[in-house]
Protein backbone atom coordinates (compact mmCIF):
# COMPACT_ATOMS: atom_id res chain seq x y z
CA UNK A 1 0.00 0.00 0.00
CA UNK A 2 2.72 2.44 1.07
CA UNK A 3 4.79 1.38 -1.89
CA UNK A 4 1.96 2.02 -4.40
CA UNK A 5 1.25 5.49 -3.01
CA UNK A 6 4.95 6.33 -2.98
CA UNK A 7 5.35 5.07 -6.57
CA UNK A 8 2.41 7.15 -7.81
CA UNK A 9 3.65 10.24 -6.00
CA UNK A 10 7.18 9.73 -7.33
CA UNK A 11 6.11 9.43 -10.98
CA UNK A 12 3.88 12.45 -10.55
CA UNK A 13 6.98 14.55 -9.77
CA UNK A 14 7.98 14.21 -13.44
CA UNK A 15 11.04 16.20 -14.44
CA UNK A 16 12.16 16.84 -10.84
CA UNK A 17 12.27 13.13 -10.12
CA UNK A 18 14.04 12.42 -13.40
CA UNK A 19 16.73 15.02 -12.70
CA UNK A 20 17.30 13.60 -9.24
CA UNK A 21 17.65 10.13 -10.66
CA UNK A 22 19.97 11.31 -13.42
CA UNK A 23 22.29 13.24 -11.08
CA UNK A 24 22.47 10.29 -8.69
CA UNK A 25 23.07 7.84 -11.55
CA UNK A 26 25.86 9.96 -13.04
CA UNK A 27 27.44 10.28 -9.60
CA UNK A 28 27.37 6.52 -9.18
CA UNK A 29 28.98 6.04 -12.59
CA UNK A 30 31.68 8.62 -11.76
CA UNK A 31 32.32 6.96 -8.42
CA UNK A 32 32.74 3.49 -9.87
CA UNK A 33 34.85 4.83 -12.73
CA UNK A 34 37.15 6.73 -10.39
CA UNK A 35 37.65 3.79 -8.03
CA UNK A 36 38.19 1.31 -10.83
CA UNK A 37 40.67 3.55 -12.59
CA UNK A 38 42.70 3.91 -9.41
CA UNK A 39 42.54 0.16 -8.92
CA UNK A 40 43.70 -0.33 -12.49
CA UNK A 41 46.53 2.14 -12.03
CA UNK A 42 47.71 0.40 -8.87
CA UNK A 43 47.37 -3.06 -10.37
CA UNK A 44 49.34 -2.15 -13.48
CA UNK A 45 52.01 -0.23 -11.56
CA UNK A 46 52.46 -3.20 -9.24
CA UNK A 47 52.55 -5.62 -12.15
CA UNK A 48 55.19 -3.56 -13.97
CA UNK A 49 57.32 -3.08 -10.88
CA UNK A 50 57.14 -6.75 -10.02
CA UNK A 51 57.99 -7.78 -13.56
CA UNK A 52 60.93 -5.41 -14.09
CA UNK A 53 62.45 -4.74 -10.72
CA UNK A 54 60.88 -6.05 -7.56
CA UNK A 55 59.94 -9.67 -8.29
CA UNK A 56 58.45 -11.11 -5.12
CA UNK A 57 60.76 -8.98 -2.96
CA UNK A 58 64.47 -8.36 -2.50
CA UNK A 59 67.02 -9.91 -0.23
CA UNK A 60 69.19 -6.85 0.21
CA UNK A 61 72.43 -6.04 1.88
CA UNK A 62 71.42 -4.33 5.14
CA UNK A 63 71.70 -0.58 4.81
CA UNK A 64 71.42 -0.53 1.04
CA UNK A 65 69.32 2.42 -0.03
CA UNK A 66 68.69 3.07 -3.70
CA UNK A 67 68.31 6.76 -2.88
CA UNK A 68 71.87 7.00 -1.50
CA UNK A 69 74.08 6.41 -4.53
CA UNK A 70 77.26 7.40 -2.72
CA UNK A 71 76.80 4.39 -0.44
CA UNK A 72 75.98 1.72 -3.01
CA UNK A 73 79.59 0.63 -3.23
CA UNK A 74 79.70 -0.01 0.52
CA UNK A 75 76.71 -2.32 0.44
CA UNK A 76 77.53 -5.36 -1.64
CA UNK A 77 78.15 -8.93 -0.57
CA UNK A 78 78.31 -12.51 -1.73
CA UNK A 79 74.81 -13.93 -1.33
CA UNK A 80 74.05 -16.90 0.88
CA UNK A 81 74.22 -20.36 -0.63
CA UNK A 82 70.46 -20.82 -0.09
CA UNK A 83 69.82 -17.92 -2.46
CA UNK A 84 72.34 -19.09 -5.02
CA UNK A 85 70.70 -22.53 -5.10
CA UNK A 86 67.45 -21.06 -6.40
CA UNK A 87 66.74 -21.66 -10.06
CA UNK A 88 67.18 -18.83 -12.56
CA UNK A 89 63.44 -18.43 -12.91
CA UNK A 90 63.09 -17.86 -9.16
CA UNK A 91 65.90 -15.39 -8.58
CA UNK A 92 67.72 -12.50 -10.22
CA UNK A 93 71.08 -11.33 -8.87
CA UNK A 94 71.59 -7.60 -9.27
CA UNK A 95 74.67 -5.48 -8.65
CA UNK A 96 74.26 -1.70 -8.61
CA UNK A 97 77.18 0.70 -8.81
CA UNK A 98 77.71 4.39 -9.43
CA UNK A 99 79.16 5.46 -12.74
CA UNK A 100 79.68 8.40 -15.01
CA UNK A 101 78.80 8.29 -18.64
CA UNK A 102 80.19 10.76 -21.14
CA UNK A 103 77.71 11.12 -24.03
CA UNK A 104 79.10 13.68 -26.47
CA UNK A 105 81.83 14.25 -23.88
CA UNK A 106 79.38 15.65 -21.36
CA UNK A 107 79.22 14.22 -17.87
CA UNK A 108 76.09 12.17 -17.13
CA UNK A 109 75.95 10.43 -13.75
CA UNK A 110 74.43 6.98 -14.09
CA UNK A 111 73.44 3.93 -12.14
CA UNK A 112 75.26 0.90 -13.52
CA UNK A 113 73.11 -2.18 -13.04
CA UNK A 114 74.41 -5.62 -13.70
CA UNK A 115 71.93 -8.47 -13.91
CA UNK A 116 72.60 -12.13 -14.55
CA UNK A 117 71.80 -13.11 -18.10
CA UNK A 118 70.41 -16.50 -17.11
CA UNK A 119 67.65 -15.12 -14.91
CA UNK A 120 64.08 -15.11 -16.15
CA UNK A 121 62.39 -13.67 -13.07
CA UNK A 122 62.60 -10.09 -14.29
CA UNK A 123 61.37 -9.16 -17.70
CA UNK A 124 63.97 -6.81 -19.17
CA UNK A 125 64.87 -6.16 -22.81
CA UNK A 126 68.47 -7.30 -22.44
CA UNK A 127 68.59 -10.06 -25.05
CA UNK A 128 71.29 -8.26 -27.04
CA UNK A 129 73.66 -8.57 -24.06
CA UNK A 130 73.32 -12.34 -24.03
CA UNK A 131 75.37 -12.88 -27.16
CA UNK A 132 78.48 -11.43 -25.52
CA UNK A 133 80.87 -13.64 -23.62
CA UNK A 134 81.79 -13.49 -19.96
CA UNK A 135 85.03 -11.71 -20.77
CA UNK A 136 84.91 -8.07 -21.79
CA UNK A 137 86.52 -7.56 -25.15
CA UNK A 138 87.32 -4.19 -26.75
CA UNK A 139 84.23 -2.45 -25.48
CA UNK A 140 81.71 -3.08 -22.73
CA UNK A 141 78.29 -3.95 -24.16
CA UNK A 142 75.44 -2.08 -22.47
CA UNK A 143 71.73 -1.46 -22.86
CA UNK A 144 69.83 1.69 -22.01
CA UNK A 145 66.12 2.38 -21.89
CA UNK A 146 64.21 4.61 -24.30
CA UNK A 147 63.87 7.42 -21.77
CA UNK A 148 67.54 7.32 -20.85
CA UNK A 149 68.48 7.25 -24.55
CA UNK A 150 66.32 10.30 -25.23
CA UNK A 151 67.72 12.26 -22.30
CA UNK A 152 71.36 11.43 -22.95
CA UNK A 153 71.00 11.57 -26.77
CA UNK A 154 72.05 7.97 -27.20
CA UNK A 155 71.20 5.49 -29.89
CA UNK A 156 71.96 1.91 -30.68
CA UNK A 157 75.56 1.50 -31.86
CA UNK A 158 76.93 4.54 -30.02
CA UNK A 159 80.30 4.15 -28.37
CA UNK A 160 81.07 6.39 -25.42
CA UNK A 161 83.11 6.40 -22.25
CA UNK A 162 81.94 4.97 -18.95
CA UNK A 163 83.86 5.75 -15.76
CA UNK A 164 83.52 3.94 -12.46
CA UNK A 165 85.48 2.88 -9.38
CA UNK A 166 86.59 -0.62 -8.55
CA UNK A 167 86.19 -2.19 -5.15
CA UNK A 168 89.47 -0.70 -3.92
CA UNK A 169 88.49 2.79 -5.04
CA UNK A 170 90.77 2.98 -8.08
CA UNK A 171 89.22 4.90 -10.95
CA UNK A 172 88.60 3.02 -14.15
CA UNK A 173 87.12 3.94 -17.50
CA UNK A 174 86.44 2.15 -20.75
CA UNK A 175 84.39 2.55 -23.86
CA UNK A 176 80.88 1.21 -23.77
CA UNK A 177 78.89 0.14 -26.82
CA UNK A 178 75.15 0.69 -26.68
CA UNK A 179 73.98 -2.63 -28.10
CA UNK A 180 70.30 -1.86 -27.69
CA UNK A 181 67.85 0.80 -26.65
CA UNK A 182 65.23 -1.22 -24.83
CA UNK A 183 61.64 -0.36 -24.12
CA UNK A 184 61.50 -0.49 -20.34
CA UNK A 185 57.96 -0.16 -19.01
CA UNK A 186 59.25 1.02 -15.67
CA UNK A 187 61.09 4.39 -15.64
CA UNK A 188 62.86 3.36 -12.44
CA UNK A 189 64.93 0.85 -14.38
CA UNK A 190 65.25 3.19 -17.36
CA UNK A 191 65.98 6.75 -16.32
CA UNK A 192 69.70 7.16 -15.59
CA UNK A 193 70.37 3.43 -15.71
CA UNK A 194 72.92 1.60 -17.83
CA UNK A 195 72.36 -2.16 -17.92
CA UNK A 196 75.35 -4.47 -18.17
CA UNK A 197 75.95 -8.17 -17.88
CA UNK A 198 76.44 -9.06 -14.21
CA UNK A 199 79.69 -10.93 -14.95
CA UNK A 200 81.04 -7.87 -16.77
CA UNK A 201 80.16 -5.48 -13.97
CA UNK A 202 81.65 -7.83 -11.41
CA UNK A 203 84.94 -8.09 -13.26
CA UNK A 204 84.99 -4.31 -13.91
CA UNK A 205 84.62 -3.56 -10.21
CA UNK A 206 86.57 -6.54 -8.79
CA UNK A 207 83.46 -7.77 -7.04
CA UNK A 208 83.42 -11.42 -8.02
CA UNK A 209 80.25 -13.12 -6.84
CA UNK A 210 78.89 -9.99 -5.17
CA UNK A 211 75.44 -8.49 -5.42
CA UNK A 212 73.52 -5.50 -4.10
CA UNK A 213 70.37 -7.57 -3.89
CA UNK A 214 68.80 -10.79 -5.01
CA UNK A 215 65.24 -10.46 -6.30
CA UNK A 216 63.27 -13.63 -5.53
CA UNK A 217 59.93 -14.96 -6.64
CA UNK A 218 58.87 -16.03 -3.13
CA UNK A 219 59.94 -15.18 0.39
CA UNK A 220 62.32 -17.81 1.72
CA UNK A 221 62.34 -16.85 5.39
CA UNK A 222 65.10 -14.99 7.19
CA UNK A 223 68.61 -15.43 5.77
CA UNK A 224 71.82 -14.47 7.55
CA UNK A 225 73.55 -11.34 6.33
CA UNK A 226 70.68 -10.01 4.25
CA UNK A 227 67.33 -8.45 5.01
CA UNK A 228 64.15 -9.11 3.09
CA UNK A 229 62.25 -6.20 1.61
CA UNK A 230 58.70 -6.96 0.60
CA UNK A 231 57.00 -5.71 -2.54
CA UNK A 232 55.07 -3.27 -0.35
CA UNK A 233 58.27 -1.84 1.13
CA UNK A 234 59.93 -1.59 -2.25
CA UNK A 235 56.99 0.28 -3.75
CA UNK A 236 56.11 2.17 -0.58
CA UNK A 237 56.43 5.56 -2.26
CA UNK A 238 54.04 4.58 -5.02
CA UNK A 239 51.56 3.08 -2.55
CA UNK A 240 51.72 6.27 -0.48
CA UNK A 241 51.01 8.25 -3.61
CA UNK A 242 48.05 6.06 -4.50
CA UNK A 243 46.78 6.31 -0.93
CA UNK A 244 46.87 10.07 -1.29
CA UNK A 245 45.07 9.75 -4.64
CA UNK A 246 42.38 7.68 -2.97
CA UNK A 247 42.04 10.35 -0.30
CA UNK A 248 41.65 12.96 -3.01
CA UNK A 249 39.13 10.81 -4.83
CA UNK A 250 37.16 10.49 -1.58
CA UNK A 251 36.97 14.29 -1.40
CA UNK A 252 35.65 14.38 -4.94
CA UNK A 253 33.25 11.58 -4.12
CA UNK A 254 32.05 13.48 -1.02
CA UNK A 255 31.40 16.58 -3.14
CA UNK A 256 29.38 14.49 -5.60
CA UNK A 257 27.40 12.92 -2.77
CA UNK A 258 26.71 16.33 -1.22
CA UNK A 259 25.34 17.48 -4.57
CA UNK A 260 23.16 14.37 -4.90
CA UNK A 261 21.91 14.62 -1.31
CA UNK A 262 21.24 18.35 -1.69
CA UNK A 263 19.21 17.67 -4.80
CA UNK A 264 17.12 14.93 -3.09
CA UNK A 265 16.82 17.02 0.08
CA UNK A 266 15.67 20.03 -1.89
CA UNK A 267 13.11 17.95 -3.78
CA UNK A 268 11.71 16.53 -0.56
CA UNK A 269 11.42 19.97 1.07
CA UNK A 270 9.59 21.21 -2.01
CA UNK A 271 7.38 18.12 -1.93
CA UNK A 272 6.15 18.54 1.62
CA UNK A 273 5.76 22.28 1.13
CA UNK A 274 3.67 21.85 -2.00
CA UNK A 275 1.80 18.84 -0.70
CA UNK A 276 1.09 19.95 2.88
CA UNK A 277 -2.67 20.04 2.16
CA UNK A 278 -2.40 16.44 0.99
CA UNK A 279 -0.47 15.58 4.18
CA UNK A 280 -3.14 17.40 6.25
CA UNK A 281 -5.93 15.49 4.48
CA UNK A 282 -4.23 12.14 5.04
CA UNK A 283 -3.71 12.98 8.69
CA UNK A 284 -7.32 14.17 9.01
CA UNK A 285 -8.48 10.88 7.47
CA UNK A 286 -6.56 9.05 10.18
CA UNK A 287 -3.31 8.09 8.58
CA UNK A 288 -0.51 7.92 11.13
CA UNK A 289 2.18 10.60 10.70
CA UNK A 290 4.88 7.89 10.78
CA UNK A 291 3.24 6.19 7.83
CA UNK A 292 3.16 9.47 5.88
CA UNK A 293 6.90 9.89 6.67
CA UNK A 294 7.53 6.36 5.38
CA UNK A 295 5.64 7.12 2.15
CA UNK A 296 7.64 10.28 1.55
CA UNK A 297 10.91 8.51 2.42
CA UNK A 298 10.01 5.71 0.03
CA UNK A 299 9.61 8.31 -2.72
CA UNK A 300 13.21 9.35 -2.02
CA UNK A 301 14.33 5.73 -1.93
CA UNK A 302 12.67 5.24 -5.32
CA UNK A 303 15.00 7.94 -6.67
CA UNK A 304 17.96 5.90 -5.40
CA UNK A 305 16.59 2.66 -6.88
CA UNK A 306 15.94 4.28 -10.26
CA UNK A 307 19.38 5.85 -10.09
CA UNK A 308 20.86 2.37 -9.72
CA UNK A 309 18.86 1.20 -12.72
CA UNK A 310 19.87 4.19 -14.87
CA UNK A 311 23.49 3.88 -13.70
CA UNK A 312 23.45 0.26 -14.80
CA UNK A 313 21.85 1.14 -18.16
CA UNK A 314 24.27 3.97 -18.90
CA UNK A 315 27.30 2.73 -16.98
CA UNK A 316 27.62 -0.89 -18.06
CA UNK A 317 27.96 -0.10 -21.81
CA UNK A 318 30.34 2.75 -20.94
CA UNK A 319 32.48 0.54 -18.73
CA UNK A 320 32.54 -2.21 -21.34
CA UNK A 321 33.58 0.29 -24.00
CA UNK A 322 36.21 1.86 -21.74
CA UNK A 323 37.62 -1.52 -20.82
CA UNK A 324 38.38 -1.86 -24.52
CA UNK A 325 40.01 1.51 -25.18
CA UNK A 326 41.57 2.20 -21.77
CA UNK A 327 42.98 5.45 -20.49
CA UNK A 328 46.11 6.76 -22.22
CA UNK A 329 48.76 7.73 -19.68
CA UNK A 330 51.71 8.12 -22.05
CA UNK A 331 52.28 11.55 -20.50
CA UNK A 332 53.26 9.77 -17.29
CA UNK A 333 56.38 8.40 -19.00
CA UNK A 334 58.03 11.71 -18.14
CA UNK A 335 57.28 11.11 -14.48
CA UNK A 336 58.62 8.31 -12.35
CA UNK A 337 55.44 6.22 -12.43
CA UNK A 338 56.10 2.66 -13.45
CA UNK A 339 53.39 2.90 -16.08
CA UNK A 340 53.76 4.00 -19.64
CA UNK A 341 51.01 2.13 -21.41
CA UNK A 342 47.22 2.51 -21.36
CA UNK A 343 45.48 1.98 -18.03
CA UNK A 344 42.48 -0.33 -17.93
CA UNK A 345 40.02 -0.01 -15.03
CA UNK A 346 39.98 -2.81 -12.52
CA UNK A 347 36.38 -3.34 -11.31
CA UNK A 348 36.15 -4.79 -7.84
CA UNK A 349 32.59 -6.16 -7.25
CA UNK A 350 32.85 -5.95 -3.46
CA UNK A 351 34.06 -2.37 -3.58
CA UNK A 352 31.29 -1.42 -6.04
CA UNK A 353 28.65 -3.13 -3.88
CA UNK A 354 29.69 -1.26 -0.74
CA UNK A 355 29.91 2.03 -2.60
CA UNK A 356 26.39 1.59 -3.98
CA UNK A 357 25.14 0.68 -0.54
CA UNK A 358 26.57 3.92 0.84
CA UNK A 359 25.01 5.93 -2.01
CA UNK A 360 21.56 4.38 -1.44
CA UNK A 361 21.82 4.92 2.30
CA UNK A 362 22.81 8.57 1.87
CA UNK A 363 19.98 9.20 -0.62
CA UNK A 364 17.43 7.57 1.70
CA UNK A 365 18.74 9.63 4.60
CA UNK A 366 18.58 12.79 2.48
CA UNK A 367 14.97 11.88 1.63
CA UNK A 368 14.03 11.15 5.25
CA UNK A 369 15.60 14.16 6.97
CA UNK A 370 13.30 16.88 5.56
CA UNK A 371 10.12 14.80 5.85
CA UNK A 372 10.55 13.72 9.47
CA UNK A 373 9.03 17.05 10.55
CA UNK A 374 5.68 15.74 9.28
CA UNK A 375 5.33 13.93 12.64
CA UNK A 376 4.99 17.28 14.40
CA UNK A 377 2.63 18.86 11.83
CA UNK A 378 -0.68 20.26 12.97
CA UNK A 379 -3.30 18.70 10.61
CA UNK A 380 -5.56 21.76 10.70
CA UNK A 381 -2.73 24.10 9.74
CA UNK A 382 -1.55 21.62 7.13
CA UNK A 383 -5.05 21.47 5.62
CA UNK A 384 -5.00 25.24 5.25
CA UNK A 385 -1.46 25.09 3.79
CA UNK A 386 0.05 27.04 6.69
CA UNK A 387 1.85 24.29 8.59
CA UNK A 388 5.11 24.78 6.69
CA UNK A 389 6.00 28.33 5.70
Amino acid at each position, binding site marked *: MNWDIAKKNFYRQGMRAFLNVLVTALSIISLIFMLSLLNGFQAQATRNLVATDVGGGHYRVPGFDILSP*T*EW*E*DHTLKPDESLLKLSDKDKAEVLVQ*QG*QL*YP*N*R*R*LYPVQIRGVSMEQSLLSLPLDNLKKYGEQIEDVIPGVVGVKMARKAHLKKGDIL*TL*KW*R*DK*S*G*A*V*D*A*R*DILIVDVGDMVNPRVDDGVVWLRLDHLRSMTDRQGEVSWVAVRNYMGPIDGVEFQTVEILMADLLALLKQDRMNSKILWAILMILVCTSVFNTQILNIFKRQKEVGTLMALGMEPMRIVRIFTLEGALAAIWALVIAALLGVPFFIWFQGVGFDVSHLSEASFPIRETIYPDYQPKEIFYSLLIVVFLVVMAAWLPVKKIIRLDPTLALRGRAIT
Partner: protein
Amino acid sequence: MKAAFIKTSVVLVCLLTLVAPCVAEEINAQKLLEQLDENLWANKKFISGRLIIDNGRKIRTLTQDSWMEGATRSYSHYKSPAREKGTKMLKIGGKLWMYTPRTDRKILIAGHLLRQSMMGSDLSYEDMMEDHKLSHAYAASVEKMEEFEGVQCAVLHLVAHDKKTTYQTRKAWVNPITKIVLKEERFAKSGKILKRILYKDYKKIEDRLFPHTMIFKDLLKENTKTTYKFDVIQFDIEIPARYFSQSILKR
Protein backbone atom coordinates in the same frame (compact mmCIF):
# COMPACT_ATOMS: atom_id res chain seq x y z
CA MET B 1 132.40 19.99 -48.58
CA LYS B 2 128.78 18.96 -48.98
CA ALA B 3 129.68 15.27 -48.53
CA ALA B 4 131.61 16.06 -45.37
CA PHE B 5 128.59 17.94 -43.99
CA ILE B 6 126.28 15.02 -44.74
CA LYS B 7 128.75 12.58 -43.12
CA THR B 8 128.99 14.73 -40.01
CA SER B 9 125.19 15.01 -39.81
CA VAL B 10 124.72 11.26 -40.13
CA VAL B 11 127.30 10.64 -37.39
CA LEU B 12 125.62 13.21 -35.15
CA VAL B 13 122.16 11.70 -35.68
CA CYS B 14 123.54 8.23 -34.96
CA LEU B 15 125.25 9.49 -31.84
CA LEU B 16 122.10 11.21 -30.62
CA THR B 17 120.01 8.13 -31.31
CA LEU B 18 122.43 6.00 -29.33
CA VAL B 19 122.97 8.51 -26.56
CA ALA B 20 119.31 9.40 -25.82
CA PRO B 21 118.31 5.94 -24.53
CA CYS B 22 121.55 5.91 -22.51
CA VAL B 23 120.45 9.18 -20.86
CA ALA B 24 117.07 7.61 -20.17
CA GLU B 25 118.74 4.61 -18.60
CA GLU B 26 121.10 6.73 -16.57
CA ILE B 27 118.28 8.67 -14.94
CA ASN B 28 117.22 7.15 -11.67
CA ALA B 29 113.47 7.55 -12.05
CA GLN B 30 112.62 6.99 -8.40
CA LYS B 31 115.33 9.43 -7.31
CA LEU B 32 114.03 11.98 -9.79
CA LEU B 33 110.52 11.56 -8.41
CA GLU B 34 111.79 12.14 -4.89
CA GLN B 35 113.56 15.28 -6.06
CA LEU B 36 110.33 16.46 -7.65
CA ASP B 37 108.51 15.93 -4.37
CA GLU B 38 111.21 17.75 -2.45
CA ASN B 39 110.85 20.68 -4.77
CA LEU B 40 107.05 20.85 -4.59
CA TRP B 41 106.32 19.80 -1.03
CA ALA B 42 107.32 22.22 1.69
CA ASN B 43 106.64 21.69 5.34
CA LYS B 44 104.58 24.84 5.56
CA LYS B 45 103.37 27.05 2.77
CA PHE B 46 100.88 29.78 1.99
CA ILE B 47 99.33 30.26 -1.42
CA SER B 48 97.04 33.01 -2.54
CA GLY B 49 95.62 32.13 -5.91
CA ARG B 50 92.84 32.03 -8.41
CA LEU B 51 90.92 29.02 -9.59
CA ILE B 52 89.63 29.77 -13.07
CA ILE B 53 86.93 27.28 -14.01
CA ASP B 54 86.01 27.13 -17.67
CA ASN B 55 83.14 24.72 -18.32
CA GLY B 56 82.94 25.52 -22.01
CA ARG B 57 80.03 27.91 -21.65
CA LYS B 58 81.04 30.13 -18.79
CA ILE B 59 84.25 31.08 -17.01
CA ARG B 60 84.16 31.50 -13.23
CA THR B 61 87.05 32.78 -11.18
CA LEU B 62 87.38 31.85 -7.54
CA THR B 63 90.02 33.51 -5.41
CA GLN B 64 91.35 31.72 -2.41
CA ASP B 65 94.00 31.75 0.28
CA SER B 66 95.42 28.42 1.34
CA TRP B 67 97.67 27.39 4.17
CA MET B 68 99.29 23.99 3.97
CA GLU B 69 101.31 21.98 6.42
CA GLY B 70 103.01 18.93 5.01
CA ALA B 71 100.87 16.73 2.84
CA THR B 72 98.13 16.08 5.31
CA ARG B 73 96.85 19.41 6.63
CA SER B 74 95.50 22.35 4.69
CA TYR B 75 93.03 25.15 5.12
CA SER B 76 91.51 27.20 2.28
CA HIS B 77 89.40 30.29 2.47
CA TYR B 78 87.51 31.45 -0.62
CA LYS B 79 87.32 35.22 -1.05
CA SER B 80 85.31 35.61 -4.25
CA PRO B 81 82.95 35.49 -6.14
CA ALA B 82 80.15 36.63 -3.85
CA ARG B 83 78.47 33.23 -4.19
CA GLU B 84 81.50 31.41 -2.79
CA LYS B 85 82.81 34.15 -0.53
CA GLY B 86 83.44 32.89 2.98
CA THR B 87 83.50 29.22 1.95
CA LYS B 88 86.16 27.38 3.92
CA MET B 89 87.75 23.99 3.45
CA LEU B 90 89.74 22.19 6.05
CA LYS B 91 91.68 19.04 5.29
CA ILE B 92 93.10 16.97 8.09
CA GLY B 93 94.44 13.58 7.11
CA GLY B 94 91.91 11.79 4.96
CA LYS B 95 89.01 14.02 5.93
CA LEU B 96 87.78 17.20 4.36
CA TRP B 97 85.31 19.58 5.95
CA MET B 98 83.61 22.29 4.01
CA TYR B 99 81.89 25.29 5.53
CA THR B 100 79.50 27.46 3.55
CA PRO B 101 78.35 30.76 5.09
CA ARG B 102 75.01 30.59 3.27
CA THR B 103 74.00 27.50 5.19
CA ASP B 104 76.24 28.30 8.17
CA ARG B 105 77.01 24.62 8.42
CA LYS B 106 80.09 22.50 8.05
CA ILE B 107 79.87 19.34 6.01
CA LEU B 108 82.24 16.42 6.18
CA ILE B 109 83.13 15.48 2.66
CA ALA B 110 84.25 11.91 3.04
CA GLY B 111 84.18 8.63 1.21
CA HIS B 112 82.46 8.76 -2.12
CA LEU B 113 81.64 12.44 -1.88
CA LEU B 114 85.34 13.17 -2.34
CA ARG B 115 85.03 11.93 -5.89
CA GLN B 116 82.58 14.63 -6.89
CA SER B 117 83.69 17.62 -8.90
CA MET B 118 84.89 20.46 -6.72
CA MET B 119 82.73 23.54 -7.34
CA GLY B 120 82.12 22.48 -10.94
CA SER B 121 85.82 22.34 -11.77
CA ASP B 122 87.83 19.63 -13.54
CA LEU B 123 89.22 18.64 -10.17
CA SER B 124 87.55 16.36 -7.70
CA TYR B 125 87.83 17.06 -4.00
CA GLU B 126 90.06 14.02 -3.98
CA ASP B 127 92.38 15.59 -6.58
CA MET B 128 92.45 18.77 -4.58
CA MET B 129 93.32 17.14 -1.31
CA GLU B 130 95.91 14.71 -2.63
CA ASP B 131 97.87 13.95 0.47
CA HIS B 132 100.66 11.70 -0.59
CA LYS B 133 103.97 12.34 -2.17
CA LEU B 134 104.24 10.77 -5.58
CA SER B 135 107.51 9.10 -4.65
CA HIS B 136 105.76 7.32 -1.77
CA ALA B 137 102.70 6.23 -3.70
CA TYR B 138 104.22 5.25 -7.03
CA ALA B 139 107.08 3.23 -8.45
CA ALA B 140 108.69 5.20 -11.25
CA SER B 141 110.49 4.14 -14.38
CA VAL B 142 111.73 6.18 -17.30
CA GLU B 143 109.62 5.36 -20.31
CA LYS B 144 111.44 7.51 -22.83
CA MET B 145 113.01 10.87 -23.45
CA GLU B 146 110.75 13.32 -25.22
CA GLU B 147 110.83 16.96 -26.08
CA PHE B 148 108.05 18.98 -24.52
CA GLU B 149 107.78 22.72 -25.11
CA GLY B 150 111.40 22.85 -26.20
CA VAL B 151 112.70 20.97 -23.16
CA GLN B 152 114.13 17.46 -23.35
CA CYS B 153 112.07 15.64 -20.72
CA ALA B 154 112.22 12.25 -19.11
CA VAL B 155 108.81 10.69 -19.37
CA LEU B 156 108.29 8.90 -16.06
CA HIS B 157 105.85 6.05 -15.95
CA LEU B 158 104.38 5.81 -12.47
CA VAL B 159 102.68 2.67 -11.21
CA ALA B 160 100.82 2.77 -7.88
CA HIS B 161 102.11 0.59 -5.05
CA ASP B 162 98.66 0.29 -3.52
CA LYS B 163 95.60 -0.84 -5.44
CA LYS B 164 93.55 1.69 -3.43
CA THR B 165 95.34 4.58 -5.10
CA THR B 166 92.84 6.49 -7.22
CA TYR B 167 94.96 6.71 -10.35
CA GLN B 168 96.76 3.43 -10.80
CA THR B 169 99.13 4.82 -13.42
CA ARG B 170 100.42 8.26 -14.25
CA LYS B 171 102.93 9.74 -16.62
CA ALA B 172 105.04 12.74 -15.78
CA TRP B 173 107.15 14.78 -18.16
CA VAL B 174 110.09 15.84 -16.01
CA ASN B 175 113.01 18.08 -16.79
CA PRO B 176 115.88 15.98 -15.42
CA ILE B 177 118.17 18.96 -15.10
CA THR B 178 115.92 21.37 -13.19
CA LYS B 179 113.95 18.53 -11.52
CA ILE B 180 110.61 20.06 -12.35
CA VAL B 181 107.52 18.48 -13.81
CA LEU B 182 106.06 20.12 -16.91
CA LYS B 183 103.17 17.86 -17.72
CA GLU B 184 101.34 15.04 -16.06
CA GLU B 185 98.77 12.58 -17.31
CA ARG B 186 96.56 10.44 -15.11
CA PHE B 187 95.13 7.16 -16.33
CA ALA B 188 92.30 4.83 -15.49
CA LYS B 189 93.07 1.27 -14.46
CA SER B 190 92.31 0.18 -18.01
CA GLY B 191 94.93 2.59 -19.33
CA LYS B 192 92.47 5.14 -20.65
CA ILE B 193 93.72 8.67 -20.23
CA LEU B 194 91.57 10.72 -17.88
CA LYS B 195 93.30 13.95 -16.93
CA ARG B 196 96.12 16.13 -18.12
CA ILE B 197 97.84 18.70 -15.97
CA LEU B 198 100.21 21.30 -17.32
CA TYR B 199 102.62 22.99 -14.92
CA LYS B 200 103.63 26.44 -16.19
CA ASP B 201 105.32 29.68 -15.23
CA TYR B 202 108.00 28.20 -13.00
CA LYS B 203 109.62 30.85 -10.85
CA LYS B 204 112.34 30.61 -8.27
CA ILE B 205 111.08 31.12 -4.74
CA GLU B 206 113.84 30.90 -2.20
CA ASP B 207 115.70 27.77 -3.32
CA ARG B 208 112.76 26.13 -5.10
CA LEU B 209 111.38 26.28 -8.58
CA PHE B 210 107.64 26.41 -8.21
CA PRO B 211 104.95 26.52 -10.93
CA HIS B 212 102.69 29.57 -10.78
CA THR B 213 100.08 28.11 -13.10
CA MET B 214 98.56 24.64 -13.22
CA ILE B 215 96.07 23.77 -15.93
CA PHE B 216 93.84 20.80 -15.21
CA LYS B 217 91.93 19.21 -18.05
CA ASP B 218 89.41 16.42 -17.71
CA LEU B 219 89.98 14.64 -21.01
CA LEU B 220 86.66 12.83 -20.89
CA LYS B 221 84.85 16.14 -21.11
CA GLU B 222 84.87 18.57 -23.99
CA ASN B 223 85.94 22.21 -23.81
CA THR B 224 86.50 22.31 -20.10
CA LYS B 225 89.59 23.27 -18.16
CA THR B 226 90.47 24.56 -14.75
CA THR B 227 93.42 26.85 -14.30
CA TYR B 228 94.96 27.29 -10.90
CA LYS B 229 97.05 30.46 -10.76
CA PHE B 230 99.23 31.12 -7.76
CA ASP B 231 99.66 34.86 -7.16
CA VAL B 232 101.50 34.67 -3.85
CA ILE B 233 103.53 31.73 -2.62
CA GLN B 234 105.38 31.71 0.67
CA PHE B 235 107.28 28.78 2.10
CA ASP B 236 108.07 27.90 5.70
CA ILE B 237 105.81 30.49 7.23
CA GLU B 238 104.23 30.41 10.65
CA ILE B 239 100.66 29.13 10.48
CA PRO B 240 98.40 29.78 13.47
CA ALA B 241 97.33 26.47 15.04
CA ARG B 242 93.64 27.46 14.86
CA TYR B 243 93.81 27.27 11.05
CA PHE B 244 93.93 23.49 11.33
CA SER B 245 91.17 23.24 13.87
CA GLN B 246 87.48 22.68 13.13
CA SER B 247 86.72 25.80 15.16
CA ILE B 248 87.86 27.86 12.16
CA LEU B 249 84.83 26.59 10.24
CA LYS B 250 82.42 29.31 11.18
CA ARG B 251 81.44 32.77 10.04
